[in-house]
């Protein structure tokens, strides 16, 4: 190696930065080159100035104490991560709970609407019942349903004869032909029903108050025609008037729900309506309106009190479910059942005897 070493090569050699082969070549050259030795010595002296920075440093006790204090006051990493994940999990849980609640509520209400009348209602049609549920704002009533669900109603067993029961539909049909004024018909109907109906004749298909959802449904199905004397349920509501309306009280799983639902509005000019008064154990009263369209036998329920919201109704069965909000806190779901046996219930106008 005849060329002189440059400063970089000399420094790399001095600080052991070059490869083994390079080091060997550089050393061989350096051994026989006085000029490179002089430059190497000069560089070595220059870099010896770095030793001035190698002063012993003593950390003050104050710094050590402050550092240890800062460490102790610092939130542990696990806690910080846990807190972060806690917040994240909490937010996710709230979001998920909201979604599940809304979804469950939708499903529950649909299920209750579909299942509550099964054991009692007698649907003689082969076509599926269509329940139309529309979301309503507080005041206005939407004409167009937002959500539509179809539910297949099973074929019920042969009904027990109930000759003594009033036939509000038939009565209303008759009244409609003679007196077209709905309110007058209502008053006549209520008066006649009250006169003819004894308390023992009321249909009361309430499930045990403590029954769970499945047991409650089973009770309704297994005792479709059980006749009992109506009495207030510990949980909810009973009917004050008219007496031909039975009520099933089911505590809902939701609280403070402000959703108002209303069945597709019956636009029949010949609609008949009955006010159904309810009361609960706390002597709170509510009133709902049952409305029957003579042409289609659709039953609708109108909101006439803020504490009562329409839930749904089966257009082919004389039953409907309402949600009662007595305190705005706890919601109860009631199924109002108008007893109408096979002989008296007529789905079509032309079939009314």
């Amino acid at each position: 190696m005849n060329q002189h070493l440059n400063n970089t090569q000399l420094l790399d050699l001095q600080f052991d930065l070059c490869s083994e082969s390079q080091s060997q070549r550089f050393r061989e050259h350096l051994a026989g080159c006085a000029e490179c030795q002089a430059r190497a010595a000069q560089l070595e002296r220059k870099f010896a100035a770095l030793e001035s920075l190698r002063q012993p440093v003593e950390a003050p006790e104050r710094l050590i104490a402050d550092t240890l204090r800062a460490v102790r006051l610092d939130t542990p990493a696990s806690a910080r991560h846990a807190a972060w994940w806690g917040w994240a999990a909490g937010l996710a849980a709230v979001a998920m709970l909201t979604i599940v609640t809304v979804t469950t509520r939708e499903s529950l209400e649909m299920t209750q609407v579909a299942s509550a009348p099964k054991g009692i209602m007698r649907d003689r049609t082969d076509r599926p019942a269509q329940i139309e549920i529309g979301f309503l704002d507080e005041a206005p009533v939407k004409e167009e349903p937002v959500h539509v669900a179809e539910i297949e109603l099973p074929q019920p067993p042969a009904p027990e004869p109930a000759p003594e029961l009033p036939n509000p539909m038939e009565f209303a049909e008759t009244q409609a032909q003679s007196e077209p004024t709905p309110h007058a018909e209502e008053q006549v109907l209520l008066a006649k029903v009250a006169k003819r109906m004894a308390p023992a004749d009321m249909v009361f298909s309430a499930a045990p108050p403590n029954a769970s959802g499945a047991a409650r449904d089973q009770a309704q199905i297994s005792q479709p025609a059980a006749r009992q004397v109506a009495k207030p349920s510990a949980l909810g509501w009973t009917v004050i008037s008219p007496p031909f309306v039975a009520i099933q009280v089911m505590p809902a799983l939701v609280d403070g729900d402000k959703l108002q639902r209303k069945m597709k509005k019956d636009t029949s000019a010949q609609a008949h309506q009955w006010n159904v008064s309810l009361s609960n154990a706390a002597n709170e009263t509510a009133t709902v309106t049952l409305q029957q369209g003579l042409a289609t036998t659709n039953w609708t329920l109108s909101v006439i009190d803020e504490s009562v919201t329409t839930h749904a109704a089966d257009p082919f069965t004389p039953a409907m479910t309402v949600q009662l909000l007595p305190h705005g806190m706890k919601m109860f779901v009631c199924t109002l059942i108008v007893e109408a046996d096979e002989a008296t219930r007529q789905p079509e106008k032309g079939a009314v005897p």
Partner: protein
Amino acid sequence: MKTTEPTDETLMMAYQHGEKNALDALVRRYADQLLGYLIRLCGNRQQAEDLFQETFLRVHRKAARYDSQQRFKPWLYSIATHASIDVARRRRAQPQTVSLDESTDDAHPMTDRLSDGRPDPAAAAVSADQREHVRAAVSSLPPGQRATLVMTYFEGMTYVEAAKALGCSLGTVKKQMSRALQSLARVLPEPPSSIRQEVLP
């Protein structure tokens, strides 16, 4: 009976398992060394003390992720170096330059060092001005080069250890060191050639 001091790694594992005094021992064990490293790294005592606290706070926060198979010292210096680099980036410190034309008043050349290659005690006695001059030269280096130089030259770490601490390859560390030395060769003051003859007997 002589009692053996627990190793750094043992203390760190103890701290992982909730022994709070273990970190106290580590802080005290590395207090002087780390503070000196940080002073050389950032060139400012107050800033070095802030970084000292920040370093051990990060050690505390990262304790759960410490691998007991890993040597503690490179890990500690890695944390300190990255804390220093983070601070430097935040503060966007202006690099200081040293004129090559300035003469030195060095009255204590490192002649002895030339003879045996070991650090000369006389070098520690150079004037404060010269020390500041050198410190400024080191501070003018880019953070990576400066950290490599301080780790390997002043702290005695091998290039492999420095590479681990800096999270880069051995070749990168050597390249950084080589560039740092080239820069310092241009910035550091020239030793007066005549002094050698005056000092030598």
